[in-house]
């Protein structure tokens, strides 16, 4: 039998196997062919779903979410809910929930998860790559995941250099560069740095990521060149700047209950949040600067000096 014919027969037999119509499977096959059918049967019978009590847990969580949703429909009406969930896709909600832990660690806008279920006070669009939703935080229903569930102690953060938890062929690896010139080679945008920094601050490190094992021409590998993190160390807390090449892949939304203020940075408008966080966009690159303990004026001065 030719290979192509064998392929057709095999697919036909597998369909019969999955339908439970074993009597329709061809007989008198080669031993190799029978081995493949045996493997297909093993796969058919392999059931991982009995290995944990996740079915009950997931259903319980779903029901909780349903209740929150119902509450919202009563309080705010169908339109608001649809609008919110259009902006925050369900998958994104989970991602945002996860993101909260990162926010807690890095002091980026707190309250993202709550933003989903809160009243929108303002929507800031910073350039093309970032949308910040400020909410008033009043009379909100329970978040989709409880605060206990979201507490940073309980949530395991994917820390720098740690391998991802999947069995994917490629693994994310952090690359630490000693100089900006070196980091420049690892990203697809021009790396600008501040000409002004508060007294005593110097470059600590520049970090990019590499996908080990990924095809160099794959989209996955290319997208690893869209991000850069630069840290400056000084007497106070580090100043950290997250760079992203702005495109569809890197665009994101975030939320906060804190007051957001529009600030002018050269020719663009950035967003400042009082806990020490400034976001702006310049020449197709989004900058996200965490600068705890530094005043708004000082932060804007740093941002304006990026050359």
């Amino acid at each position, binding site marked *: 039998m030719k290979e192509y014919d064998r*392929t057709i027969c095999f697919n036909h037999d*597998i369909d019969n196997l999955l339908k439970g119509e074993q009597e329709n499977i061809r007989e008198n096959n080669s031993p190799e062919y029978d081995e493949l059918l045996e493997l297909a049967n*093993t796969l058919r019978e392999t059931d991982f779903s009995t290995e*944990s009590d996740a079915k009950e847990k997931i259903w319980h969580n779903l029901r909780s*979410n*349903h209740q929150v949703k119902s509450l919202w429909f009563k309080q705010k009406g169908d339109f608001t809910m649809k609008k919110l969930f259009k902006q925050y896709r369900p998958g994104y909600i*989970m991602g945002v929930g996860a*993101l909260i832990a990162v926010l807690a660690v890095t002091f980026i806008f707190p309250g993202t998860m709550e933003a989903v279920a809160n009243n929108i006070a303002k929507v800031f669009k910073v350039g093309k790559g970032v949308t910040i939703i400020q909410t008033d935080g009043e009379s909100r229903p329970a978040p989709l995941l409880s605060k206990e569930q979201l507490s940073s102690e309980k949530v395991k953060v994917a820390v720098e250099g740690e391998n991802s938890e999947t069995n994917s062929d490629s693994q994310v690896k952090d690359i630490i560069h000693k100089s900006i010139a070196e980091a420049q080679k690892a990203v697809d945008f021009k790396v600008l740095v501040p000409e002004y920094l508060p007294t005593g601050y110097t470059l600590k490190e520049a970090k990019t990521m590499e996908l080990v094992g990924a095809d160099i021409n794959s989209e996955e590998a290319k997208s690893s060149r869209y991000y850069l993190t630069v840290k400056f160390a000084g007497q106070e807390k580090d100043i950290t700047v997250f760079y992203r090449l702005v495109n569809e892949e890197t665009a994101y939304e975030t939320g906060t209950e804190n007051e957001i203020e529009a600030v002018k940075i050269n020719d663009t408008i950035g967003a400042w949040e009082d806990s020490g966080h400034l976001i702006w966009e310049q020449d197709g690159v989004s900058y996200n600067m965490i600068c705890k303990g530094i005043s708004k004026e000082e932060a804007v001065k740093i941002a304006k000096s990026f050359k």
Partner: protein
Amino acid sequence: MEKAYITSLHKENSSLVKAKVKSEDFAQVYDDYYKRIYNYMRYRLGKRELAEELTSQVFERSFRKLKSYNPEKASFAAWIFAIAHNTVTDFYRARRRKYWVSLEAIWDKVSPEPGPEEVAVKKEEREKILKALSSLEEREREIIAMKFAGGLKNTTIAELMGLTDSNVGVILYRSMKKLQKELKGKGMGS
């Protein structure tokens, strides 16, 4: 009912085939699809915690999008597996953005595995299958997951993955041969 057989090899619940699914029917949807979606995730992602988490996301998405399901356009199986496929794609994308944080701690009180010898053997067998699957390319793994965990027909898989039916058939056949070879190397299989 007939439509479901075009896209799935499983006997679909008739209420999910003929009409739009109502929110109150979702318990039935969950019951009918949990095993298939969970196994699909396990095949694709390997890790149990991730499979649980993404399974949860699939049902959340499905529930919220329920109103958009149109039985005239696709079977419910095709619709929900499209959501499952997108959930995994989004997961990898999020991981690329380095904003991925595991919420496995939420479920850190996972029940211990039962101890009987038979279960232990089964577990070992499953682990070997997962290991062997991880040696396949992403596309090969996805097709096997859709086929054996999802019970989907090649036409549906082709539609979800942007391939032709015959492409799916050829990839499936070759992937199974690769898997068989890999399992033999691990001392499993004939």
